[in-house]
């Protein structure tokens, strides 16, 4: 395939000089003797003279068809791409006491497979021509071989094993509901800290998946997937009648999940402001009421009472939201003047149009653009910028295309 990974000049033993801090933008580091920085040299470790490019094997089987006298055409494809020889270090298998720096070796492999279907229907009824089409695709990535340290028990292997495992699995707990009364809190069987003496009505609680009486990392199981959507689809209608043409395009994705971050996820972050949606929250009837007094009256709301630690909902089905969407990407209506009219003016062709991009979006997310990545468990702030990326613009255009 030609993709090459791994450190340069791996096959040569020797020393890296000067030493750099890879976790820190490769800044030169060393030690200071008598006030001068002495650059360091560190062994490259073992060498791998056999490092090669990845190999990628792509298989595709499909059917292209055109039936019903050109009225219906389309294609269906199944594909599988195997990449072999992905670069990894063998660290996980050799005892650390040997202190050996392993080279990159072609050890891992992965697979991406899926299917895609395209359909298009065209027809013409006297002067009215139209076409309707759509496409739908599904792709899933999985790891085939991943070199990892040995696992301590079967649970460890299920929780952390990557060999022959789907990629990008999002682990978390299930959301179970909100407390609605003090009685429910006092009788609650799961200890969420301090014997639940710090819990007030309106707070979220989670499902004790393994029924052991506490909510912790042992309750994590696959709840979603992250990164790029698994399913992409689109739908297109175009029609034309005499000089008028209309083009509508929908596009969407499913199988994507995201998590709100920072100000979208919780109010009063960093002691600063809040989105107005958080005003709809549980609160006591009088602001001075003691929240722990079981006689206090509460007004119900959507969000928990102020002071709730929203860190608790991270990686749960409450915070990990379905980011599927359908978007009306393009609507364009145009009119082409007839050539006879134009010849008088000396213009070869003249088409006028009005269109709109990203006119409507249907999604369950509020306030963030589903086409932008949000917070994911393995991404840092740069990945989705905390959800603060500007959403895609909705634009309206009016234009003309004139040929002289």
């Amino acid at each position, binding site marked *: 395939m030609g993709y090459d990974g791994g450190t*340069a*000049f791996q096959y*040569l*033993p*020797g*020393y890296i*000089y*000067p*030493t750099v*801090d890879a*976790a*820190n933008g490769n*800044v*030169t*580091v*060393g*030690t*200071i*003797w*008598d*006030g001068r*920085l*002495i*650059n*360091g*040299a*560190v*062994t490259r470790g*073992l060498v791998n003279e056999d490092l090669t490019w990845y190999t990628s094997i792509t298989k595709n089987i499909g059917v292209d068809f055109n039936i019903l006298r050109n009225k219906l055409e389309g294609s269906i494809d199944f594909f599988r791409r195997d990449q072999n020889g992905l670069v990894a270090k063998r660290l*996980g*298998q*050799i*005892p*650390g*006491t*040997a*202190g*050996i*720096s392993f080279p990159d070796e072609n050890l891992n492999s992965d697979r991406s497979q899926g299917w895609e279907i395209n359909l298009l229907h065209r027809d013409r009824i006297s002067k009215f021509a139209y076409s309707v089409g759509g496409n739908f695709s599904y792709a899933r990535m999985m790891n085939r071989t991943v070199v990892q*340290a*040995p*696992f*301590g028990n079967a649970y460890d292997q299920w929780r952390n094993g990557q060999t022959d495992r789907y990629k990008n699995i999002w682990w978390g707990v299930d959301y179970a509901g909100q407390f609605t009364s003090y009685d429910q809190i006092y009788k609650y069987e799961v200890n969420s800290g301090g014997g639940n003496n710090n819990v007030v009505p309106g707070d979220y609680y989670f499902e004790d998946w393994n029924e052991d009486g506490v909510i912790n990392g042992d309750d994590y199981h696959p709840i979603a997937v992250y990164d790029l959507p698994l399913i992409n689809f689109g739908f297109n209608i175009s029609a034309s009648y005499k000089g008028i043409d209309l083009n509508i395009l929908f596009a969407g994705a499913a199988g994507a999940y995201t998590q709100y971050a920072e100000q979208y996820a919780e109010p009063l972050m960093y*002691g600063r402001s809040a989105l107005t949606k958080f005003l709809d929250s549980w609160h006591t009837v009088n602001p001075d009421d003691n929240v722990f007094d079981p006689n206090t009256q509460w007004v119900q709301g959507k969000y928990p009472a102020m002071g709730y630690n929203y860190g608790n909902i991270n990686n749960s089905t409450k915070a990990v939201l379905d980011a599927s969407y359908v978007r009306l990407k393009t609507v364009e209506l145009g009119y082409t003047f007839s050539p006879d009219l134009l010849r008088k003016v000396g213009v070869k062709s003249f088409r006028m149009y009005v269109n709109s991009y990203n006119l409507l979006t249907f999604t369950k997310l509020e306030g963030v653009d589903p086409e932008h990545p949000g917070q994911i468990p393995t991404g840092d702030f740069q990945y989705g910028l905390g959800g603060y990326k500007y959403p895609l613009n909705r634009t309206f255009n009016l234009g003309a295309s004139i040929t002289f």
Partner: protein
Amino acid sequence: MKKLSKLFIAVIMGVLAFFTSCQKLDIKPVNQLSDDQIFGNESGINAYLANVYRNLPIEDFRYGPATADGLEPSETGFNPKHSWKHFYHSGAATGEMVGPWGGLSIGGGFGYWPYVDIRAVNYFLETLPNYSANYTGNRVDELLGEAHFLRAFYYFGLAKRYGGIPIVKTVQNYPQQSIEELSVPRNTEEDVWNFIGDELDQAYNMMPETKVSGRANRFTALALKSRAMLYAGTIAKYGSLNFVEGDAHAQGFVGISADKAEGFFAKSIDASKKLEGKFSLYEASADLEQNYVDLFLDGNNKNNPEIIFVKGYNPVLDVQSPHSWDATFSPRYFTGGGDPRSYPTLDFVERFGVLDVTNADGTPRRYNNLSEVGQGREARLKATVFFPGDVFKGRAFDDPSNTGVFDIRRGIYPSFTGKAVDEAYLTAPVSPSDPGTARPMDQRIGNNGQHLQLADDINSKYEGRTIIGVTGIRTGADNMTRTGFYVRKYINYKTPQKQVDLFTSSTPWIEFRYAETLLNRAEADIETGQLDDALVCLRQIRRRAGATEPTLADMTVEFVRNERSKELAFENHYWWDIKRWRVADSWLNNAHFRGLMPYYVLSEAKYIFIKERETFDRNYNFEKKFYYEPIPQGEINKNSNLAPQNPGY
């Protein structure tokens, strides 16, 4: 003709190209160094050792003791990435200070397994003798001695955390050796400490006395031996009384039998005594307080007689080199950026003597000014901790209204009668682990006076006076003192205010200094009954500190431990000390620490100071299993011979 000349030119070009293009693209990159270039000359050796020095387990300003309470895995360990959160200090989980740790969160450590660096040293020891022809005289021996010191330092970092770990003295290779051969078992803890002692003996015998700041010489080896053998001796003596049962203990992987203690103490005293005459305490100035402050800022000075080994920082060379100690331990009022989060406790300050802020009948003394509470204290105390009312001498303040005074006030009492302890407590405290019952804040009425006024904003006023001071004490956030004190040790008072920010401090970290050696010697002396020698050492320490002269009757274990805690405050020693003395589980048994809270009494126009719980009232609880950290589970999975795991995990 045209065609022919074109052809002719083409042919000539082709022939020329043919002959000149046959150059094999086989040139090695020129920045690849080989063994010959590294080991063949002094600069190569320096580069190789520079990396080993950089990775030494020196617990300096930037050291992150554990991943917890807001410190990410990338910010823990040694030389952590982009770390400026120096307030995650080991002293802030153990009672020297209180800080951002939620409790005793550092017990489990961060999984230190530096065998890659140990292999680098082993490789050095095996390869350098092959190149001895390139060096004159004893240079090769000197360098090998240095390598023994470095190896001992790495094993010291491992031994104090885990007890017995595999001693790897030779270079191991894969796949020449099979995984079974590479699965080395643990050595007993006693063997590891003996190995460290032997390595340092070799280092001492082989290394020269040349002084290069930041580089070790034979005296550094002695200083490390003095420390390491003392650790081993106390682990032997006290570890046999207070330990967790388990397979690892029964098989000797953790714990040393008590009869070995004497031997280790003797080795420690021997090493300490060899440093006598070569070093002395820093006594450059007659002003004892200023002298003690300057000691820590003078690490780069080769003539500083107390410094044995430093780790340098330099603001110019690369972005990550400077640290942020000044910005993260001084209040924002005095700096250009950064916020502090760790503050010395009253329990630490009272090691120097109980503060006399109450009269004989228990009522708080009235003061006209805040600064009166700091007067007449031991010079070393004032040089280690800032008191309310202290002036931050030496630094230029950009804002003329900023006079550099530590205006630390917690609130205003409209009036106050009665005893201080009744106001702050429902039941009086005895010690941090027996901390009494605090009076709830809504009942703080000055013993039948009016409600205490507190605030979170420095601009809040009560009857025309600001309620809290410009540098503390807030009810809310922790960016101003929680205890009434600020750290003074290592704070560079000479930098102008605007220049103090994150990543702008270059004060070197003093890893070994002669005062510690004297304390090591005094402690080992007292443990073995040599009280006269202990008196000699402690007398020097206390004279330099401006404390009263000790007598032979003072030479007890408690006295020398207290002296050590005072002298080596905030230098990352206390955590290891309470562990090796096996007192951590009783010192930190649901412990609560206190601060000294200054209040203004409106009706009397005077200040009072009340000793009470620090504002966050956190609770610190040491579990006995934390005397040893757990061997990283991933390593046990790869090498089952590392079992048994340390007890309690």
